[in-house]
């Protein structure tokens, strides 16, 4: 049953994600967490893994969630699920490309979808921010913990690097090194 569930869930995610890469995050967050397959923290960790390995984020995360919840068969089901909607839709579009390109309906929907993706990712950023800065909830004591300030400092430095177009892999590596150094020196 888990296999079918993985397939259908990722089929849904593939079918409703417009715009590549992180556009998938809000849906992944919604579906994967509500199924209890993985906490948000693990998804955030996996974003780093995906940035540092080749291949599209969608395939990577589908394979990862599938493996973790249903083994290798689970991975096959979720990956097949996330690929299939695109595959079918592109085959249809390739056959009648002109009609598709000039379609007012497609253009109209896209004028709504593009800004929606921005809003949805922004909302995902808020919950990811909570997981990063306040892993045990927003409390008064969270603001006085060194973990909070160190996370904030790492975030600030990495944001500067990211906007300077430093390669994401390098950003992931530097953050990891800082994390290890800080972790051991504070004995967290």
């Amino acid at each position, binding site marked *: 049953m888990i296999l079918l569930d993985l397939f259908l869930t990722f089929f849904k995610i593939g079918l409703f994600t417009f715009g590549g890469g992180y556009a998938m995050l809000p*849906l992944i967050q919604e579906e994967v967490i509500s199924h209890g397959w993985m906490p948000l923290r693990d998804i955030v960790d996996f974003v780093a893994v995906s940035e540092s390995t080749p291949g599209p984020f969608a395939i990577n995360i589908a394979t990862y969630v599938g493996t973790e919840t249903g083994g290798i068969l689970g*991975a096959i089901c979720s990956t097949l699920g996330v690929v299939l909607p695109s595959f079918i839709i592109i085959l249809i579009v390739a056959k009648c490309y002109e009609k598709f390109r000039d379609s007012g309906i497609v253009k109209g929907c896209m004028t709504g979808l593009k800004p929606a993706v*921005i809003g949805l990712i922004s909302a995902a950023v808020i919950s990811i921010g909570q997981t990063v800065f306040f892993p045990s909830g927003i409390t008064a004591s969270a603001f006085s913990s060194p973990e909070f300030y160190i996370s904030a400092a790492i975030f600030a430095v990495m944001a500067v690097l990211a906007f300077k177009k430093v390669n994401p892999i390098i950003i992931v590596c530097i953050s990891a090194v800082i994390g290890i150094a800080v972790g051991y020196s504070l004995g967290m």
Partner: protein
Amino acid sequence: MDNKNIKTSRFRKGLELFLTFMKIGAFTFGGGYAMIPMIQREIVEKKGWITDEDILEIVAIAESTPGPIAVNSATFVGYRVAGVFGSFCATFGVVLPSFLIISLIALVLRQFRELKAVKYAFYGIRAGVLALIIKALVSMYKKSPKGWASYVIMAASFAIAAFTELNVLYIIIGCAVFGLVTSVLMKRRDEK
């Protein structure tokens, strides 16, 4: 005889599509649009299967169809080169490296996740990832359409997703419908 030749050439094309897209899948980091220059070099310049104009077409299609850009473009190029069989080969090729690499990594992660050093590393990485996602968000915002309707949709979808329990799917469908309705209304107004 002719029939047999067509069959072998089709098979060979399928194999070539599979291998080329496997290479693309194995060597593009970050996915999405990062894949486009690679596709251009491999498919347009080396193989000559499609033209630069086709690439623009593919990007336009990928932007207005659901799913990952890598899969969209593999399916599209595969179809152009060798029909449905070609799409299958190209898509299978682009997916396979990720699939294998991530299955392996999942195994490794499970073994090492509880190590102190790995925990610390991910503690640092999480803050870095947040920065990467915000960077991606800002570049998406720069490319997105401007105007009051867009801002309303952005604000509304953000607020609903952040402050209510409504499933993201309904927000996506709602925004598509809203976009369609406003664009039809604007077109009518322009026609008058």
